[in-house]
């Protein structure tokens, strides 16, 4: 449990404005869904799914709200998962007078509840970090980051400017990290703790022995970076501690096939292939209780995806492609984000195909898909598209369209945190501070 009193207090002093009753901290450990046949509770999971360069608002936003909303031309790719998702339109990132750092302000504003004051800086942790600190400490990995773009730098899971969780770009390396020699099958008949792990754990604790002396040598900013380093050491220690306990059974867990060592990169055909493989591995990582939190990047914030034979990247197309006067949109750029939306539907389907308890793996997840902008040509941070998938163990409804009509996008982040059991009643700073969760979502 590392959502410590100190960290919460620090969050408050930095202006997150969490209202905290300390005894509530206990509840963070118990974000449980329904029980398995064995009686063990099914864990609740949280994830994000990201695509870059938005959509065309007039072709994506539905007009009707609630369950009866119409499928618009650009929602066609997700129509097949309509019952499992919610569509959230017209929620805004508010810049509070700060510059719009293109492809950054919208993305990080949505994820941290505050428009960044400078490019590539984030003063506050992203949403997934807040949630992982609360629910992710009892699994082998606090969170897992993946990208289908081939570039480990494409990650929007950030504790601070200096601490960006790198994304794994290779399906094979991801498989090895998860299901390689250190993997413990939760359904194995017998369990005995590995003596090697016992020794490793005690040896590792010696790495942090001199913590105080090292910290006293350096200035304040460096101290907080070293603090992050020591936190990372501690997390590995916790991983080893978990390996010494018999893992709870996980009915849905099946060790997946080892993927081929194929190409990785930014060609959209390659990204689509790798995305599918990664999602299947991720589904098993969740089902096998390896993590409760994940971040999947399909394309980066200024989408660098390419298409064989097309001279411009997705990002360049959004700016430079002519709006077709007959169609009323940029056909080549649009094709890219339509394929991204299709990949999101695939993602939802793969999680929904895993049976778990009385329902599916997806039913015990809450996943937020979003982009960095609405209309990429103008880097618009108003009406950034968001979709949610999964019922969070029965805590949220699905199948709805909710229109924000200009409300701050932090309402979504606040709702997610509350659903995941975090004791916050307000989130965001400045004009984006809100105390209003999306009550129409709650079951």
């Amino acid at each position, binding site marked *: 449990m590392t959502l410590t009193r100190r960290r919460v207090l620090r969050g408050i002093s930095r202006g997150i404005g969490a209202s905290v009753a300390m005894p509530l901290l206990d509840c963070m450990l118990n974000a449980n869904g329904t029980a398995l046949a064995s009686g063990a509770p099914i864990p609740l999971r949280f994830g994000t799914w990201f695509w870059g360069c938005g959509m065309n608002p007039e072709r994506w936003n539905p007009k009707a709200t609630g369950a009866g909303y119409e499928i618009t031309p650009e929602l066609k790719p997700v129509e097949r998962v309509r019952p499992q998702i919610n569509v959230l339109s017209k929620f805004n990132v508010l810049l509070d007078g700060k*510059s719009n750092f293109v492809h950054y302000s919208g993305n990080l504003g949505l994820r941290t509840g505050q428009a960044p004051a400078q490019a590539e800086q984030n003063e506050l942790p992203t949403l997934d970090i807040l949630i992982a600190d609360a629910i992710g400490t009892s699994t082998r990995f606090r969170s897992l980051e993946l990208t289908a773009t081939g570039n480990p730098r494409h990650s929007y899971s950030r504790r601070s400017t200096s601490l960006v969780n*790198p994304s794994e770009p290779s399906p094979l390396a991801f498989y090895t990290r998860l299901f390689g020699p250190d993997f413990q099958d939760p359904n194995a008949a017998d369990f005995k703790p590995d003596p090697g792990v*016992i020794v490793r754990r005690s040896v590792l604790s010696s790495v942090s022995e001199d913590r105080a002396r090292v910290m006293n040598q350096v200035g304040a900013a460096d101290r907080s970076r070293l603090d*992050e*380093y020591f936190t990372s050491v501690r997390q590995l220690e916790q991983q080893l501690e978990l390996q010494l306990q018999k893992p709870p059974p996980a009915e849905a867990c099946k060790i997946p096939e080892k993927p081929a060592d194929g190409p990785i990169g930014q060609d959209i055909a390659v990204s689509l292939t790798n995305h599918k493989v990664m999602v299947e591995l991720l589904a098993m990582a969740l089902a096998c209780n390896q993590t409760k939190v994940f971040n999947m990047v399909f394309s980066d914030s200024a989408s660098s995806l*390419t298409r064989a034979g097309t001279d411009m990247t997705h990002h360049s197309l959004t700016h430079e492609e002519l709006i077709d006067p007959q169609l009323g949109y940029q056909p080549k750029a649009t094709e890219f984000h339509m394929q991204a939306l299709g990949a999101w539907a695939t993602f939802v389907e793969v999680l929904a195909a895993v049976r778990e308890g009385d329902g599916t793996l997806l039913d015990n997840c809450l996943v937020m898909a979003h982009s960095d902008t609405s209309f990429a040509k103008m880097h618009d941070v108003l009406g950034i598209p968001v979709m949610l998938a999964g019922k969070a163990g029965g805590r949220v409804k699905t199948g709805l369209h909710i229109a924000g009509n200009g409300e701050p996008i932090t309402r979504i982040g606040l709702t997610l945190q509350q659903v995941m059991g975090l004791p916050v009643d307000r989130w965001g700073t400045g004009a984006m501070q809100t105390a209003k969760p999306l009550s129409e979502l709650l079951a």
Partner: protein
Amino acid sequence: MNKARNRVEAAIAALALLLGITACGPAEPGTAGAPSVVQRLTEAQYRQTIADVFGDDIRVAGRFEPMVRKDGLVQVGAGAAAVTPSGFEQFDRLGRSIAAQLVAPERRSRTMSCKPQSDTAPDDACAGQVLAKYGRLLFRRPLSPEELAARIAVANAATKGSGSFYEGLRLAISTELEMPEFLFRIDATEPDPDRPGRLRLNAYSKASRLSFLFWNTAPDDALLVAAERGELNSRNGLARQVDRMLASARLASGVRSFFVDMLGYEGFETLAKDSMIYPAFNPAVAGDAQEQTLRTIVDLLLTQKGDYRDLFTTRKTFVDRVLGPIYYVPVAPKHGWISYEFPEGDPRAGLLSQISFAALYSHPGQSSPTLRGKAVREVFLCQKVPAPPANVNFTVAQDTSNPEYRTARARLTAHRTNPTCAGCHKIMDPIGLALENFDGIGAYRADENGAPIDASGELDGVHFSNAIELGRAIHDNPAAPVCLVDTLYKYASGHSAGPAQREWLQWLNGRFAAQGYRLMDLLRDIALSEGFYAVTPAPAPTQNSAINDASGRGEG
């Protein structure tokens, strides 16, 4: 005794400095220095250190988490980098794998300086000998008695736990490889006896700065010995080490690392070109294009001891079979490099006309005069180009079917009619357009979409008609050598120079010019200066971050 010797040396140094005033211009002005830094080792530094300390047969198999570039350099970003949980997982895996190779039976005769009394029981004396030796090289300073005792205790306990001396030692060595003292270069300071009230780096931190600057690796034994003996605090002692390092063949690896950082070569890790548009481009081309440029740099600056500015005009370079076809240059040997000089009248000369620059600063399917012009401004002239406004209107340049807009020049000219865009594009595009004869992978072309390419342009009032003349314009631009000095100082110290260092940098620039812009002289001047080692105290903790951080880990 040492003190007396230092005093004599200081007197000699002062005299030399006095003499220097007549020989090589003014003496070094005082500077308060820059704040101390804590830099995470880069991947290259980690790998080179392991090879140097343990031998280059030790495999470092694993990935490193990406570094963030800051103020134009990865090395400055290293001063803001932390270690993420997955990053530490990697360091743990690497540390255990390196230590396992080190104690493997077939290597023990080389790597172990003693034999334990028993293979199955603790032997603190032998373990201590090995851990002290490697600990000193990895931490870049000797371990304190307490630190060494703690490592021995780890080996002792792990030997008892595993029943094997070498297993215990392996685990203890792996902790040395995972500790912050190895993974971070932490500047240690001490009061400067020559300037009361001021701080300087202590001798070991000085040794690290020198070693990472010249060789991009941890200090070797001789340098640590010089630090131990206090020799680095005397001008003569320092000069002996600096000249030794400058004369070493390893200087090339340090100079390469600097230019890899300055030229942004981490971009090649994920550089992809459309294989239908550029079928000639592949990973081998990307790798050898960097190697070509680095060979050109090392040859001109170190082997020939040439003028830095000639990098923009030189026709001398190296090619191999991989690059030959793109340059239309026949290369006889199947493997390896040949030196090559582009003939007089050839459209290519200087780094900007090489494949590495053309390909790196282009889009996957097109060249980009804007990216190239921006790179020239930012990388070689140290002039920051502002970010584009968010709501740019590109409509005027969108219509590629318009016969008016067949070339990049035509499209960009149309784009620049927008006044919000004009301001920045006019400082980038006229540079980049001079390189339009080189396509997105650096192959020569005379025209684009059937229209002839006009490669004329302008840089700070100097007009040119092609890439050769652009190279000459950068060569003659006073900002170019000043930018190199700035960038090298930033790389060496981990900081952008502040107003406090302005006068000091001017002095450095004056010497660089007077000595004919020789990189080795510049390196020597920096390494022998006092300003390079002057340190200001770290800023006081701000209220809401550090105080809480210092209060302990607190698992809640």
